[in-house]
């Protein structure tokens, strides 16, 4: 599983730190870091929560094509 650069860029576009995003969703910063690094596969509920905070769709943040998300 590769790095989730879309999530990272969407977060940066909203000027949110990993901690800000984690606080908004109700998870730890380590969990956001693990998702961005590709070390953790989040549940659909967590994906939806992330997308709602970032104002993006699941496709825009999590859909994988050509091997990278």
């Amino acid at each position, binding site marked *: 599983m590769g790095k989730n650069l879309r999530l990272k860029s969407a977060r940066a576009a909203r000027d949110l*730190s*990993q*901690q800000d995003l*984690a*606080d908004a*969703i*109700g*998870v*730890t*910063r*380590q*969990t956001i*870091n*693990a998702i*961005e*690094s590709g070390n*953790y596969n*989040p*549940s659909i*509920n*967590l994906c939806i*929560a992330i997308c709602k905070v970032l104002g993006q769709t699941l496709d825009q943040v999590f859909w994988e094509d050509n091997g990278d998300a």
Partner: protein
Amino acid sequence: MRKSVLDEMQLQMRNRIGNQAFMILFYLLLTDVGLNGFGVKWLQYPLNVFVIMVSTMFYYLIRILWAGAYIGPDSSIKKAARKTAATVITAAVAASVSIFAIWKNNTETQVPDRTSAMVLFIFSAVAIVVAVIVSIASMKQNRGKDQ
């Protein structure tokens, strides 16, 4: 999502580490039984099981702390301090009881049974050490910077 409990990644980590710790405990106890069958006695009966259990508990706790799965997203330092204080008080009471039991056994003329009191004493000492380590680690858990 509820912040007062562990998040989904922390729960997954804790379950995985818990399963590993249980299997380690199982195999260590099985090995101990096997060694006893061959006549190898590395410690007296209650203490060998006690040492194995405490070692596995340490392994579980250290792995959980290392994985950042000990406290949830919203666990404040105050909560951690309260938990630590409760553990230290319980351990101190247990230590006092065990010291009293050892002292009473020493003063009486009957054959002393110090093993239980010693086990309780060691356990309370270990609990204090673990509480302090956990307190320090839980305070440091969420201090890292973004990557």
